[in-house]
């Protein structure tokens, strides 16, 4: 069950999108999100939708895999859509008890839903095609200017990349502890909210204990391998822009311009 969460995981493949500079992908994702909120008509959807499908194809990502990654946000998506559907004022097309559905509401819900789906799609393409290490070194470089304001950019980037590395390990561990407690008769599946929350204690405490133990051991291993912060550190994979990055930037500018001027 927990194995199904693919969000934020790297999907290894040989593609031009995988080879793009992580800064391009990071800034590109931001640009794409901006573009998503710029257009106001159906044509904008087609443009952005077409763009994302094109990028997915270029990245050689199986659609199934992407859709699977949507599962964790399904609840949020439904919630937002229903919220928009019922609370947008305008021309009433249906009514039931205290709920009324308006034409504007239907549009708003659809727009919101599609935007959110594309937003998650777009950002997950970034994480699927970029190794956590590259992604963090990209972010480290993009946000590098913050160092002037004493923001520990390198340390934050390192923390994120380690967190990403340990997500699958901790998920496995959660699964294992859950089963071990189930074997002792624990019940995670039935009962009211309070009972279920209480049932989580035997799962969460061992998980925290284990996470702390891992953190301690990892810190020791990093120290043993001469880690001493960002000072004097070189990079195995330094960032370098190529022609493909220029093309990517140009197409993103094209997308934004398109979204602004589309009828």
């Amino acid at each position: 069950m927990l194995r199904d969460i693919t969000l934020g995981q790297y999907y290894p493949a040989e593609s031009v999108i995988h080879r793009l500079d992580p800064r391009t992908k990071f800034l590109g994702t931001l640009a794409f999100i901006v573009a998503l909120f710029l257009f106001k008509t159906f044509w904008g959807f087609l443009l952005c939708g077409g763009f994302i499908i094109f990028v997915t194809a270029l990245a050689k990502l199986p659609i199934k895999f992407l859709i699977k990654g949507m599962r964790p946000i399904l609840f949020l998506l439904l919630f937002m859509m229903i919220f928009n559907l019922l609370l947008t004022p305008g021309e009433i097309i249906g009514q039931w008890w205290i709920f009324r559905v308006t034409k504007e509401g239907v549009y708003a819900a659809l727009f919101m839903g599609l935007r959110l789906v594309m937003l998650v799609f777009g950002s997950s393409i970034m994480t699927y095609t970029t190794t956590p290490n590259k992604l963090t070194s990209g972010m480290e470089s993009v946000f590098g200017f913050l160092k002037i304001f004493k923001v520990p950019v390198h340390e934050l980037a390192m923390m994120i990349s380690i967190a990403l590395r340990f997500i699958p390990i901790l998920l496995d561990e959660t699964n294992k502890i859950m089963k071990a407690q189930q074997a002792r008769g624990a019940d995670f599946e039935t009962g009211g909210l309070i009972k279920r929350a209480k049932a989580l204690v035997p799962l969460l405490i061992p998980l925290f204990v284990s996470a702390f133990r891992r953190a301690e051991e990892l810190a020791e291993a990093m120290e043993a391998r001469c880690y001493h912060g960002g000072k004097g550190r070189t990079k195995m994979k330094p960032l370098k822009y190529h022609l493909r990055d220029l093309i990517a930037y140009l197409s993103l500018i094209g997308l934004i311009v398109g979204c602004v001027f589309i009828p």
Partner: protein
Amino acid sequence: MSLILDKISYYYGKGTAFETAAVKNITLSIPDGEFIGLIGHTGSGKSTLIQHMNGLIKPESGNIYFNGADIYDKDFKLRDLRRKVGLVFQYPEHQLFETTVIKDVLFGPNNMGFTKLEAEVAAYDALKAVGIGEDLIDASPLELSGGQKRRVAIAGVLACNPEILILDEPTAGLDPAGRTEILNLLKKIHEEKKITIILVSHSMEDVARYAERIIVIDNGEIYFDDEPRKVFEHEDELKKMGLEIPQCTQLVRKLKKCGFDVDEDCLTVEETLASIKECFGIN
């Protein structure tokens, strides 16, 4: 009283490109009171197999019967199965969560619907069986040594009064003294409480010493299921699976080949020593 697995199969990543069979068409019968060794290396499917035995994993195909009842029948209560088939996972000390040893051991019995008195009797009994003394029952599990933690975790499962106790590599990561301690403990529990024990291990030497029946699993399939001396006759096939028969059994086999009059079925060092001594006429 018995547990029967009838032609069970289970796949990982069902429906994806990564689909692999974890266990294939396995049929097994676990009668009362046996001490069974389940052997196979990492990834052989042994951990998946044992999770079927108390309903933590549902097979894709095949049936599991406990005392004659299909455990996936509508009327069957999985919780009853989990009480009667105790499963101790690898590194079980990682599941301890309570503030004191006794509270942690009570977790199982309380979940299983024991009365307060029954639960306490069972918990104290289990702690005694694993050799945790009165002085430690109110200690925090985090303060104990590695070996003690593991014994407390085993007590946590034992306190549910299971009829079958399955342990997944209970000696992993312990030093030699710790390993012997745990194994002797299991033997004692088996003899005194008449509990069926399934010991999952990759040490042939441990299994040979304690088990009366050995099941060898590789690639999700059962290759051998017999008493130890019969299984060890397949020395070469076992070697291909990355498993070695105990050193002392190897020794007597080789000696026999060289013409020494020794018993080639020796399973433990004591038996081997006695047999060689006899052969040389010393005592």
